[in-house]
């Protein structure tokens, strides 16, 4: 099955091919073009297509819409931007100054009739109507980072963050506009997928509003016969992708699970996001290059791309950190052995080159040479990869060691699984100056607070005093207190049940091999499989089991002709094979990884399930904590 990300890449490539479907030829003739995007377009394109690929497709120049641009004659220009007033104004200016000779306009989300007319007026005024070759609505208003993950906004993400949605003094119009943005992007996701989902959502919060709006919009589009967005299934896929089932869209609000975004992580990808700020599949790592003459350590920053082209990353992004370290070691060993082989070959060739080689011997050797030469770039790539991962992993390791993230992680796992025990240790951890910076302590305490049943006022005050002495910002606490009062926490005592860790002995194979990763002092924790609340909800809804959590979830089916009362139980009794989980208010890699593990666990059964994870924004714990703190400040 073609994934969301591949479909998006296909749509982008077709757009870059001047909106014509691509044909495969042996050495095609390049057609030159210029790509112009706005910030949103840049966010969408950068994780999907690298600059080298852009060059291969014939894009000679790629510039921002709002930068100063010079006229370049005789070359078509491809625009990829949102249809906002600002952007349209700038495009009008471009028309006036006659910058390019042919314009191909692609709008990321559909342009309204009014704005289209404005654009037409501007074009008429500038006398360049004949130069506008094509105008397209690309329904691509979302960013896919991975095959099964997407989110909505990267820059300007504060507009639709958790803070913006849950603010105290939010006005109705602002709320409407936020919901509209979210619905628009979700609609683009389904337009790209080409299917109409069945929608389920909990009651009484932002998720419900989003679901209602999305349902209405999908209904409108289906009734509108001029529109052929969703009838292109067989044509575009050529009959390969033909599932009889519609996917299930589950819209959840962040409030269903507040502990996970603050959780300390242990998998490679999640750690990179948490500690090194992995954004748009790219991390910026500081590495110590050497000692400068002044005596201080020279620090150089290096940007590393971690995406699907990186084989090692794809294999290990979900594994716990010690596994990753071992794997890097193995790769290094493999690389060294292949290097040895090549060196040996060079030696044998050297000996033979002294005398005149017989022709047949030469062919034999040339075969070996060509294979070595062919494998040489591969080896070099591998070396670069290993280098990069070593840098990233050692940076992460440094953070872990300095903030003792492993102990924090272990503790949080224990807390989340058996909330009753281990009251004492938290006091130690909170007062320990070594265990993490103030934010870490705050996160730890919030998780503890959320997961434990009840804490007496006196104990609470003691903790607060300890936190204050450690220098934490206490505003998030007040917000969380209020949230806990609102949420029906008593009804769900065992949300995180089944978690926990077991410690593998420190004298593992790793240390005995004398590796470059000195993992002493870092516990070798292995996470037991468990399901986060989100995963559990997804599981129940997909299997059509009802539990007290999902009992009163609303049910929308845009394909049904009558608007039925959505509190009825759903008609469709078969379990769903495909689900799209959307988290309003911010998602993170931990949930994504958990969902991936869940689908992999189910893959052994009769049919495999596919889950796509989406969120309005992607927050790591630091950002989320800041939002909570702002919210807490408002309460006073």
């Amino acid at each position, binding site marked *: 099955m073609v994934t969301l990300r591949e479909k998006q890449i296909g749509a982008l490539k077709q757009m870059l091919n001047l*909106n014509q479907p691509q044909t495969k030829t*042996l*050495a095609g*003739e*390049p057609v*030159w073009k*210029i790509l112009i995007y706005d910030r949103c377009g840049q966010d969408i394109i950068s994780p999907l297509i690298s600059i080298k690929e852009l*060059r*291969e497709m*014939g894009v*000679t*120049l790629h*510039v921002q819409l709002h930068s100063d*641009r*010079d*006229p*370049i*004659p*005789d*070359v078509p220009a491809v625009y990829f931007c949102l249809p906002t007033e600002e952007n349209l104004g700038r495009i009008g200016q471009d028309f006036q100054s*006659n910058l390019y*000779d042919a314009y191909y306009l692609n709008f990321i989300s*559909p*342009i309204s*009739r009014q704005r*289209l*007319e404005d*654009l*037409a*007026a501007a*074009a*008429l005024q500038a*006398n*360049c*109507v*004949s*130069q*506008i*070759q*094509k*105008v*397209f*609505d*690309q*329904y691509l208003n979302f960013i896919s980072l991975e095959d099964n993950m997407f989110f909505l906004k990267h820059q300007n993400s504060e507009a639709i963050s958790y803070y913006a949605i849950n603010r105290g003094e939010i006005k109705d119009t602002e709320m409407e506009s936020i919901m509209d943005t979210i619905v628009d992007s979700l609609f683009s996701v389904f337009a790209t997928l080409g299917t109409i989902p069945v929608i389920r959502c909990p009651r009484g919060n932002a998720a419900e509003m989003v679901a209602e709006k999305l349902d209405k919009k999908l209904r409108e589009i289906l009734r509108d016969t001029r*529109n*052929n*967005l969703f009838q292109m299934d067989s044509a575009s896929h050529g009959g390969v992708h033909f599932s009889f089932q519609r996917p299930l869209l589950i819209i959840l609000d962040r409030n269903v699970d507040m502990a996970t975004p603050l959780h300390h992580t242990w998998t490679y990808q999640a750690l990179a996001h948490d500690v090194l700020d992995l954004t748009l599949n790219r991390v910026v790592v500081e590495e110590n290059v050497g000692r400068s003459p002044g005596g201080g350590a020279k620090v150089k920053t290096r940007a590393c791309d971690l995406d699907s082209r990186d084989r090692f990353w794809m294999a290990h992004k979900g594994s716990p950190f010690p596994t990753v370290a071992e794997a890097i070691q193995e790769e290094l060993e493999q690389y060294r052995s292949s290097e040895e082989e090549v060196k040996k070959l060079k030696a044998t060739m050297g000996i033979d080159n002294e*005398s*005149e080689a*017989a*022709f*047949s*011997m030469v062919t*034999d050797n040339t075969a070996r040479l060509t294979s070595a030469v062919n494998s040489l770039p591969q080896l070099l790539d591998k070396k670069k990869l290993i280098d990069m991962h070593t840098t990233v992993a050692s940076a992460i390791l440094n953070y872990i060691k300095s903030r003792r993230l492993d102990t924090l992680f272990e503790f949080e796992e224990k807390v989340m699984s058996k909330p009753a025990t281990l009251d004492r240790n938290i006091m130690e951890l909170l007062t320990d100056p070594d265990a993490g910076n103030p934010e870490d302590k705050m996160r730890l305490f919030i998780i503890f607070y959320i997961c434990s049943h009840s804490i007496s006022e006196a104990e609470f005050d003691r903790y607060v005093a300890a936190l204050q002495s450690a220098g934490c910002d206490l505003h998030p606490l007040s917000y969380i207190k209020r949230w806990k009062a609102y949420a029906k926490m008593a009804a769900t005592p065992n949300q995180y049940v089944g978690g926990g860790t077991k410690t593998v002995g420190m004298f593992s194979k790793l240390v005995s091999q004398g590796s470059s990763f000195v993992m002493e002092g870092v516990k070798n924790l292995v996470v037991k499989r468990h399901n986060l609340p989100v995963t559990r909800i997804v599981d129940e809804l997909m299997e059509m089991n009802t539990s007290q959590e999902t009992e009163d979830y609303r049910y929308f089916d845009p394909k049904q002709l009558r608007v039925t009362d959505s509190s009825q139980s759903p008609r469709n009794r078969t379990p769903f094979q495909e689900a799209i989980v959307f988290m309003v208010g911010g998602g993170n890699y931990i949930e994504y990884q958990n969902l991936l593990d869940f689908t992999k666990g189910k893959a052994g059964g009769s049919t495999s399930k596919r889950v796509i994870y989406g969120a309005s924004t992607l927050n790591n714990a630091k950002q989320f904590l800041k939002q909570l703190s702002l919210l807490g400040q408002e309460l006073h």
Partner: protein
Amino acid sequence: MDITTLFKACVKTIRTRNKAFGVADTDKNRIFGTRTQRNEFNIGAKEVLGQITRLRDFLLEHRKAYLNFASHLSDIPQMTDVERDKIDLGAQRIMNTCSHLIQEFKKVSYKMDGSPQLLEHREAVLDLVESYLKSVCKIYSQQRAIRVKWALEMQKISKLGIDSKRNGDSRAVSHNSSDIFLNDKKNDILSDSNSGQRKVPETSSNTDVPAFFSDDDQLSSEEMQMFEAENAQLYNELNSLTEEVKQIESKVVRIAELQEIFTEKVLQQDKDIDRITSTVIGTTENVKDANEQIRQAIQRNAGYRVWTLFFFIVMSFSLIFLHWYND
């Protein structure tokens, strides 16, 4: 989704609206649209691109014929070696000129002035053209590599014997492989009857060092003698073979005649056998009938006897009775 038509419709409505309001429409007189500026760079680059495309199309068109080395066996288009050489030369010439042109363009464009974006664009354009040229060159070199490999193999095959000794290191492995290679090739091409003879020079050359393939056709006198001796040997062998073949031929002819006589006889016997079968069938029928009749005869016989006996017994009793009565 394509909304170009929608856009054009909007443009039309606005135009009519403008006409209604009396706003001047300067676009009406433009029938051909804005003329593209004459730009030397672009024109030049497009020319180079066109040339490369033409070369590529030409190469691809003749690819099948070029790579068809077993032309006498099939009916796909053929190409002589002369034509292939011509194609090679021509393609190389075009590629050289193109790369020169690109280099010149690069130098010129560095000197040309323009905005930084324009310069970047031009650089990128030239890079793209260069990579396109490289990919077309790859097609050409692949074809050529296949052809060269084939030619070398053909040359290796066409050498009948092993050439002079080349005192080098002992290359047992490659040595054997080359021998096996030669054996295989030769056994495929020449008839099987020669293979026995082939083994003789092979075994003798096993102690020699194998040939070093060179284009040099100068043969030393030793080699000449060896070749002549070999030639004479081969000639004698071939003569004896032909004689044997003739004898075998005559024998085969005689066998054929005898077999003809046999066939005649066999056909006669066939006829006789047919006759005999039909007679035998008739006989069996007769015999069956005969059995029937004999059975009937026996039955009648038995019947007559009974009646006769009865008659005699009755007569004798009646006589006895009459005798008694008359007394």
